[in-house]
């Protein structure tokens, strides 16, 4: 067990955790914004898959990584738009329409993959680079400042989202639309429009999450690449109490435990591999059960807003 505490291993675990957390960060922050405005989107996994496919396809054919990222954002936005139409305008049951979106995204990304690419291929993708000065700090430098750009952007999203939500009128409107849509409406906030934009933004970020997978983390596309990641990302929103910093904490906790259990297996620690794989999920539940933070969800979450109804 004392093998665990060598520098190599600690650096290894933390580096893995940072990498693993990246797609969750994009998707969870996007979903947080959407949920703060009042819309639950369970279809995040489907959007991630479509984003991953779009980014990969573009890069495979043009070699341009940023064009791929743009493609993922556009695709994510379109799927977010679809979700908005169904959930906000048509006022459908959000949980179920989200699942429909997931099935649709999974099916379409697989179909397009089979028809346009066919077999598993790899791309060179985003390369890691070390940030000067900061990258030379012992341990921390290796862990935080020696990654690829998609990782850096994901972590920068956290303060950016915090700032937008807490320090701008826009953020105020989003939270108002979710917390008390009737009051917001009476104050001149176009609740539907705010929800549309939040869900579309959420979709865009979910698309980016997919791109971070196919272009940076695994550098390939395969059907069902995400294997349910999107659902974990949604769960992490609840864990984080609808705050970007909480989401960061959740994503890091989950990913660190995951990295930890992999390392334990590699080092031959005598633990059943199935139990090891369960650990991140168990600990996430435990962490939430035993913390005092009992954040309340946005009052208007999952309730379609109809003007004139109370």
């Amino acid at each position, binding site marked *: 067990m004392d093998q665990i505490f060598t520098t190599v291993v600690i650096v290894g675990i933390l580096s893995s955790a940072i990498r693993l957390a990246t797609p969750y960060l994009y998707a969870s922050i996007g979903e947080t914004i959407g949920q703060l405005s009042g819309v*639950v989107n*369970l279809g995040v996994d*489907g959007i991630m898959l479509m984003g991953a496919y779009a980014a990969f396809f573009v890069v495979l054919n043009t070699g341009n990584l940023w064009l791929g990222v743009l493609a993922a954002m556009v695709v994510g936005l379109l799927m977010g738009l*679809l979700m908005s*139409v*169904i959930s906000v305008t*048509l*006022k*459908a*049951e959000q*949980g*179920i*329409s989200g*699942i*429909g*979106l*997931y*099935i*649709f*995204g*999974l*099916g*379409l990304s*697989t*179909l397009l993959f*089979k*028809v346009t690419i066919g077999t598993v291929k790899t791309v060179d993708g985003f390369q890691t680079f070390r940030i000067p000065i900061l990258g030379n700090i012992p341990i921390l430098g290796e862990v935080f400042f020696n990654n690829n750009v998609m990782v850096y952007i994901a972590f920068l999203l956290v303060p950016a989202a915090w700032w937008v939500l807490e320090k701008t009128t826009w953020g105020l409107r989003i939270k108002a639309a979710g917390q008390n849509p009737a009051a917001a409406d009476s104050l001149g906030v176009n609740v539907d429009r705010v929800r549309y934009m939040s869900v579309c933004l959420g979709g865009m970020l979910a698309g980016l999450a997919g791109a971070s997978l196919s272009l940076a983390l695994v550098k390939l596309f395969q*059907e069902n690449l995400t294997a*349910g990641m999107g*659902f*974990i990302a*949604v*769960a*992490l929103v*609840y*864990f984080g109490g609808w705050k970007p910093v909480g989401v960061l904490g959740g994503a890091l906790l989950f990913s660190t435990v995951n990295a930890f259990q992999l390392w334990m297996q590699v080092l031959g620690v005598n633990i*059943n591999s*199935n*139990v090891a*794989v*369960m650990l991140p*999920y*168990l600990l*996430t*539940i435990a962490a*939430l*059960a035993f913390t005092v933070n*009992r954040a309340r*969800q946005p009052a208007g979450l999952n309730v379609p807003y109809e003007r004139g109804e109370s």
Partner: protein
Amino acid sequence: MPSETAVVPARSRRRFVFDWKEILFRAAVPLLAMFAAFIVGAVLLLLLNVNPFTAYAALIEGAFGSMYSITQSLVKATPLLLVALGICIAFRASVINVGGEGQIILGALMATWFSLQFRAWPGWLLIPATIIMGFMAGAAWGFVPGILKARLGVNEILTTIMMNFIALQLMNLLLRGPLMDPGGVTAGTFLAQSERLPEQVWLARMIPQTPLHTGFILAVVLAFVVYIFLWRTTIGYRIRAVGLNPHAARYAGIKVPFNQALSLTLAGGFAGLAGVVEVLGVHHRLLEGITSGYGFTGIVAALFGGLHPLGAIPASYLFGSLLVGADKMQRAVQVPSALVDTIMGLVVMFVVGSAWLSRRWAARRLAATAKRQEVK
């Protein structure tokens, strides 16, 4: 002045009468939505160089073309119906149960372990005992998120999703270890499946040469039980009250968190039953992939049935037929199975998105009835 009862639709004043016109309307809307989704699907088929007519003909033939396909749809409908019943209960308390997959696994695990453990028991004792134990296992898996929500305020979407993954690993752990088929170990194949269950615990085949098993009857009977439970018992009333207006319910002295936890526990139990019937009636053993995605598709079936336990019966059958027919279509025109999933996703979104139509119609009819009474 119109009498006070005039604006309330007549049906709610009577006990077991159904408003057939209303039901027809509510059924027509999702069917129209499905039709629209299939049109989009036809476009996709054309893009793949497949004749949509051939494809959809195969779908219909696959779903209804033979006694075997019809019974196959019923067999598929059984776990769908069971999960849907749980969803209906949970939904009435405003709780969405996304933990179906994990709960099915627990039910299946318990059914396997229990019937192998007590294989000496006779069938008439072993089958009901296994069913009850399987229900309890699934219920336990729904209880954990329920109690965490009720006592500690932990959100159930988080816990149920996490517990799905935990259940999967638990099954892997048991299947590759203590529950692995000893035959597989000696033969060196190490397949991820359990021993074949003792024959007396297998659910009987109702029609020879078809896969239809008695689990279907159980599911239908339970649908009526759930209906009676929700609408004719005090507990059921409380659950529905919590879902309709939690504030008013609390005011009336109903314990909201307790009832939500209860509904989640019951939902878990029914999903667990789905696992039990799959193991006892279809596979006769536990193997990986036992859930077949029913934890999610059951939610869709519940939706198609208007989130009403009796509506879930025809809805599960129709949805089951759709799935069976879609597989046949895939075989006949050799399109990637992903195309079928894409169309399914569209169907769900279109149907759920069309709900406003039935609400609009219902509102209009309500207004028309009120007007009629006024004129009188």
